[in-house]
């Protein structure tokens, strides 16, 4: 399905939503213009975080499809975080560039850009889905989860997200800041930083203390 077709389908879904009461906002389709930016003056190196919807457009199933959908020549690579190794798997789409790993609902991704692209994210979130946010295990598993923030989620900042997951189950939430090529972390505890706002399209690190099957509160 092309984006055009998909958007058409979404319009139908929206119309159904307006005429009936079976559908709720959380599983309506959405379209999001999300800017994936290229390298600039150091330390800006073209790294972007990306949260895709639970229900992605048809065919958007792996790292290669994501690069193609953004525009292959505009993208240097796509990476996913692997909890078991506390490290990353990266796909470049070029020779010796790794395997095109599958995309999964709830996972955040890094997209390293070569050329700035306004990426149109389309799809819908699944209000019934739960995300398995897992606690620390034996090293190197330290409770870090790279979470794809939902478009229809009610939690608007880092504190609200921690509260929605269960504050005592969460150690901290971090966001990536392009300008510094580093992270801002919020713990909710003393000297624990500011509760930064959450932005649809962005993925966040959620470091867990206790495993939670998280069903986000949504509109």
């Amino acid at each position, binding site marked *: 399905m092309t984006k055009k077709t998909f958007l058409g389908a979404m319009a139908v879904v929206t119309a159904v939503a307006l005429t009936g009461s079976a559908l709720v906002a959380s599983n309506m389709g959405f379209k999001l213009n999300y800017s994936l930016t290229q390298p600039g003056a150091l330390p800006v*190196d073209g790294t972007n975080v990306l949260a895709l919807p639970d229900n992605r457009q048809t065919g958007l199933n792996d790292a290669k499809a994501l690069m193609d959908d953004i525009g292959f020549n505009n993208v240097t690579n796509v990476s996913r975080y692997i909890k078991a190794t506390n490290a990353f798997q990266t796909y470049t789409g070029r020779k010796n560039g790794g395997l095109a790993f599958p995309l999964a609902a709830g996972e955040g991704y890094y997209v390293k850009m070569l050329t700035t692209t306004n990426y149109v994210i389309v799809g819908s979130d699944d209000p019934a889905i739960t995300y398995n946010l897992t606690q620390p295990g034996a090293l190197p598993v330290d409770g870090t989860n790279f979470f794809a923030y939902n478009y229809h989620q009610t939690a608007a900042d880092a504190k609200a997200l921690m509260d929605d997951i269960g504050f005592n189950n969460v150690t901290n939430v971090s966001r990536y800041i392009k300008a510094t090529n*580093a992270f801002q972390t919020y713990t909710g505890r*003393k*000297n624990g930083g500011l509760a930064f706002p959450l932005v649809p399209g962005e993925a966040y690190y959620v470091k867990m*203390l206790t495993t939670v099957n998280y069903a986000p509160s949504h509109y």
Partner: protein
Amino acid sequence: MTKKIVFGVALALVIVGIAAPSASAACNPPKSISTYNSGTGAFVYYKTTLLDANKLVGTVWSASGQHAGTACNEGPLATTFLYFGATPGDIGMNLSLGDGCVVGCPSGTASFQITASNAAGAVQTIVSKVNEVSGAVNFDVSTQAPADLQLGNAPRPRATSSTRTAPNVNLTIGLDSSAALYRNGTGADITGFNIVSASGLTDPGPSAAAYTLRSFVAAPGGAAGTGAASVDCSNIANDQWVAAQVVSATGGGAASVGPRTRVKCDPTLANPKYNVVPKKGMGTTTQN
């Protein structure tokens, strides 16, 4: 291995290097060092007897180099990762190693120096280290024993002699042992002290960024040491403030310096001939 295979392996390594997701300046995903563990509820404070301490400076390093130094204490990237507790003398620490001020990422073990100072120029410090663990805090200071949290007096350079070679004042310097301040085996990583100086009418304070390197005094493990340093007194309107900056083999110079020794630059004050106490000649008697 043939050249072709070597080239292939090298190419793969290059691609992996290029492909590694960034936030290259810091830990990705972020790690943390803290005196409070939200998982266990345990917390500790570093302790200083400087109850009027008004400035804290911290340095973090590991075998892979210094991670949190001047940038985490001074300037636009500075983060308040050290803080005073409610009780005077208590010092807490909470640092996200994903912060923009952090360089690289410690793995396995992290060492850190905590320095507290007051307006009068007194400085207390401690150097300690913790191993990386899996849990709410990656480098969990809350497990440290009280003796590993108690700051002590940082060494002050003692000018044991001086000469003047205009415009410099040349100092012979002694440093007392501070070995007891290097806890948990961190002494093995301490190579000595940079002797640094800064010009000014007032004490420049404890931040190493304010000083210029003059010399290095070898003092393995923080043992007593001696050395020399020349300070520039071409501007006699100012004085020179001389301090010792602890140096580790892996982390380099710390972000803080110890207490300062003031060197008067005005030759009318520094020239020894004005400070000589005249000896009385043999047979001189005191007249009543």
